[in-house]
C-alpha cells in the first residue's frame, strides 16, 4: 500500500496521504482555490463548481471531492479556469437576493469575499460598511448612497466617519435598486433627494439611466 502520493498543483509539489482531496492538497501547498458549497464530511456534492481544477489533458474535476490515489498533476489557476469561475459566480449572483443592508451575514459573507476575488461587480457598499446595523447612517437621517453604490472601495468614507457618495458608480441590477429605493422610502427619504445626491458623481455614468428609471418607478407608487 502506498503511504504517500505526490500531487503537483500549479507546479508546486506536495506529499499527501492517498485519498486526500485536491483541495486539501492545494491548501497544504498554499494555493487558494475558491469554493462555496463544500463542508468536509457534511456536504461534498460539488454543487458550486467554483473549485474546478484541470488536469494537464484538459479534463475538469471539482477539487473538493476528487481524491488522489497516485501521483497526479493539476492546474488550479489558469486564465480560462478563472474566467469560468467568474462567469459561474456571476450566474449564482444573478438569482441571489442581494440586500446587504438587511443581511445578517454581511460581515462573514463568502459571496462578498468571492466577488472581490473574482472581480465581479454588482454588490452594494453596505456589504463593506464597518458600522453595525443599529448604527446605520440612514437610521440617523443621513443620506448615504451605500445601498445603490458599487462596492470594492472597502467603504473608506464610512470607515473615516463620512457617508457614501457612490464614487465607484451605481448598481445596475433593477431588483437590487428596487429594494434599495423602497428601503429609502421606508426610512423617510425622498427618492428625488437620493437621485440629486447621486447626480454629483453619476451624471455621466453608464448605469445612471437605469437608476433613475427604477427610482421613478418606486416614487410613482404613491
Amino acid at each position, binding site marked *: 500500500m502506498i503511504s504517500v502520493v505526490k500531487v503537483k498543483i500549479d507546479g508546486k509539489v506536495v506529499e499527501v496521504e492517498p485519498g486526500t482531496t485536491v483541495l486539501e492538497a492545494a491548501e497544504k501547498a498554499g494555493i487558494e482555490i475558491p469554493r462555496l458549497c463544500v463542508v468536509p464530511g457534511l456536504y461534498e*456534492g460539488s454543487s458550486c463548481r467554483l473549485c474546478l481544477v484541470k488536469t494537464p489533458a484538459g479534463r*475538469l474535476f471539482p477539487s473538493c471531492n*476528487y481524491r488522489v490515489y497516485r501521483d497526479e498533476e493539476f492546474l488550479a489557476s489558469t486564465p480560462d479556469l478563472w474566467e*469560468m469561475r467568474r*462567469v459561474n459566480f456571476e*450566474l449564482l449572483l444573478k*438569482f441571489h437576493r442581494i440586500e446587504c443592508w438587511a443581511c445578517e451575514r454581511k460581515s462573514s459573507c463568502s459571496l462578498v469575499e468571492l466577488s472581490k476575488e473574482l472581480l465581479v461587480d454588482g454588490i452594494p457598499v453596505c456589504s463593506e460598511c464597518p458600522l453595525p446595523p443599529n448604527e446605520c447612517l440612514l437610521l440617523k437621517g443621513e443620506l448615504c448612497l451605500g445601498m445603490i453604490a458599487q462596492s470594492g472601495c472597502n467603504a473608506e468614507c464610512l470607515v473615516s466617519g463620512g457617508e457614501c457618495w457612490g464614487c465607484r458608480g451605481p448598481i445596475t441590477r433593477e431588483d437590487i435598486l428596487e429594494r434599495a429605493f423602497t428601503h429609502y422610502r421606508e426610512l423617510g427619504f425622498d427618492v428625488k433627494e437620493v437621485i440629486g445626491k447621486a447626480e454629483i458623481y453619476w451624471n455621466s455614468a453608464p448605469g445612471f439611466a437605469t437608476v433613475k428609471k427604477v427610482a421613478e418607478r418606486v416614487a410613482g407608487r404613491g
Partner: protein
Amino acid sequence: MNWTLLDRCCEKCTHSPEKPCPDYIECRLSGPLCHDDERCREMRRQRLEELRYGEKGAKIKVPMASCTLATGAEAVYHAVEDAVKNMGLEATITISGCHGLDFIDPWLELSAKGMPTAIYANVKPSDVPRILEEYFVKRDVSRAFALKERVGAASGEDKVPLLGELGFWAKQYKWVSRNCGVVNPESLEEYVASGGYRGLSRAFKLGPEATIEEILKSGLRGRGGAGFPTGMKWRITRQQKATPKYVIANADEGDPGAFMNRLLAESDPFRIIEGLTIAGYAIGANQGYIFVRAEKPLMAKRLQKAVEEARRCGLLGKNILGSGFDFDIEVILSAGAFVCGEETAMIAAIEGKRAWPRQRPPYPAEKGLWGKPTAINNVETLAHAATIMAEGAEKFAAIGTEKTKGTKMFCVTGAVKRVGAYEVPIGTSIRVLVEELAGGAPEGVKVKAVQIGGPSGGCIPANLLDLPLDYETLQGAGAIMGSGGIVVIGHENCMVDVAKFFLTFTSAESCGKCIPCRVGLRVMWSILDKITKGEGTEEDLQVLRQVAETVRSASLCALGGTAPNPVLSTLRYFMDEYAAHIREKLCPALVCSALIKYRIDEEKCIACGQCAMNCPASAISKIESGKYRIDESLCIKCGVCYTVCPVKAVYKVTGARAG
C-alpha cells in the same frame, strides 16, 4: 393446453426447474439432443409450423405497441375478432410488436399455409372484414401493402412489392431489432423459436472471462449516447473486489423524438432480459435492475411480464440452465425526471434517494448502487450483447466503421414522409437515413437542419447531411449520437426558436444541483426569449456564447454538459438567423410571433369569412369590398386565420414590410 416448445418432449427428457439441463435452449430447436426419437423431433417441427401459421393453419397478427395503439390498433384487434367470428374463419389471432415503420400504423399481417404472408397498411376497423375476405376467402392479395414472400398461389401477387425490396426495409440492417414486429412480445416460446437465449447458453459454455472477451472483440460501444466500450465496462466491473455487484439496464428513455428503446422493449423484451442476464453473468452479479420510465407504461408492463415469464421457465432464478449461476431481475419505475437517465442519478433513484447525479469518479463500475460495483448499460446495448453472443462477434464486427462496429437504431421524426425507427449500420450517412429510409421532406417543405441526439444534441445544417452517423463525426460537428433521435427540421422553422424550444426542455429538467446548469440554462433561455422577441442585442449574443461555454464545461453531469449544444450548434451554423433577429428585428422563417404580422391578400380573398369566424380576438372584419382585413392592434398572432383560410390568402410578413 397444447404442448409448447418450452415443455419436455417425453419422459426421457431430464430437464426440470430443480435440475436444469445445460442444453435446454439448443434442444428446443434442433433437439432432442440427449435421446433419439423421431416422434420428439416431429413434435418440434410441427410446433414451429404452428407458431408460423397458427394452430389452425391461418394466422392474423395485430401489432400492439404504443405507436400502433395510438393509431387505433386496439379497435382493429376487436374488429378482427368480430370478423373472424362472423365469417367463421379458422384462424389464430395473435399480437406482435411494431416494425418501427410508424407511417403504416396500424398494420395487419395475414399468413396462411400455401399463401404469401401479406402486410396491410393503415388499416381501419371498417376495412377488416374486406381484407380478411380478400385474403382468406378470395385468396387475393392485390391490395396488400407488401408481401414477405411470393409463392405464386394468390392472385395479384405480382402487383404488390416484397417487403425486403422496399427501400426503407432493404437499406436497413435488422440486427438488434430483427424480432420487432415479428414475434409475440409476450411469448417466451416465440422468442426461443426465433433463436433467443442461444446467446446466454453460449455465454455459459464460454465462461464469464471469454464472454467479456467476445464482447470486446465485437467492438460494441454503449448505445445510450456516450459510446464507452461495453466489454471494457464489464471487465472493469468484474475486476472490482467488492461484492455483491449489480447490473442495471437503463430503459429511461426521455428524449423528445426518441423511441427506439420503447420500441425494442415493447416488441422484443426478452432480448433485453437475456442481455442483462449475460451482463450479470459476465461481471459476476446476481441481481439486475431494469429502470423504466413510468411514462411508458406498456414498455414497463412488457418488461415486467417478460421477467416473470423468464423466471417461470427457469431462465431467471437459481442455477440458470444448470450453470450454477443465480440471477434475478427487478423492474423499477422511474419518477419521470429526464435526469434519471444519467447513471449516477439513476443509482440514487433506485436507492430511494432524490435523483441527483453525483460527481464521477468514483465511477459506478467501482462504486455504484449501494456503493458496490455496478455496470449500467442502455437496453439497446444489452440487446446487442445478447445478439452478439448468439451470432458471434465476427458477424457484428464486420458491420459499421473502423472505430465503431455494428448497427444502431435511429428514430426519424419531424419533417419527413416516413416517420419511424430504422436500424442501420453505424457510419451510414444522415442523408441516406433521412432521404432514402424516411423518404425525405414532405411536398413543399425543404430540409433546413437535422437535430441529432435529442435536447442535448446539436442542429446540423442540411449541407452537412452527407456526414456519416458515428460518435466522433457527430461530436466534431457539434451534435451527439445520444440515444439516436433525429428530428428533421423543415424550412418553416426558426432556428432561434428551435434552440429556445430545446432549452425550455432542459432548463425545466435541470435537477438544480449545480450552479452552471441550474442558473446558466435559465439565463440562456431568457436571452433566447429576448432575441425571439426582437429585443436582443449584440452583447446578448456574446453573453449567450460565454454562458453556454461555461455551462458546457463546468456542469456536474452530462445533462448540463450537453444542454448548450442546441444553442452552440445553431450559433455555429445559423448565425445569419440570430443576426436577422437582432439587427433587422425580423424572423426569416416567419415564426417568432413578436416579429411577424398577419395580412390578408385581397386579391386572393374569396370573402368566405372563415378567418373572421375563427378569430379568437375578433380582430378580423369585413371591409367595403366585401373582403376581410386584420386589425393589427387587436391581432394576438395566434395564426388561426392562417390555418383556416381555404385559399391561403392569409400571409405573414416580417421586418420592414411588417412596418
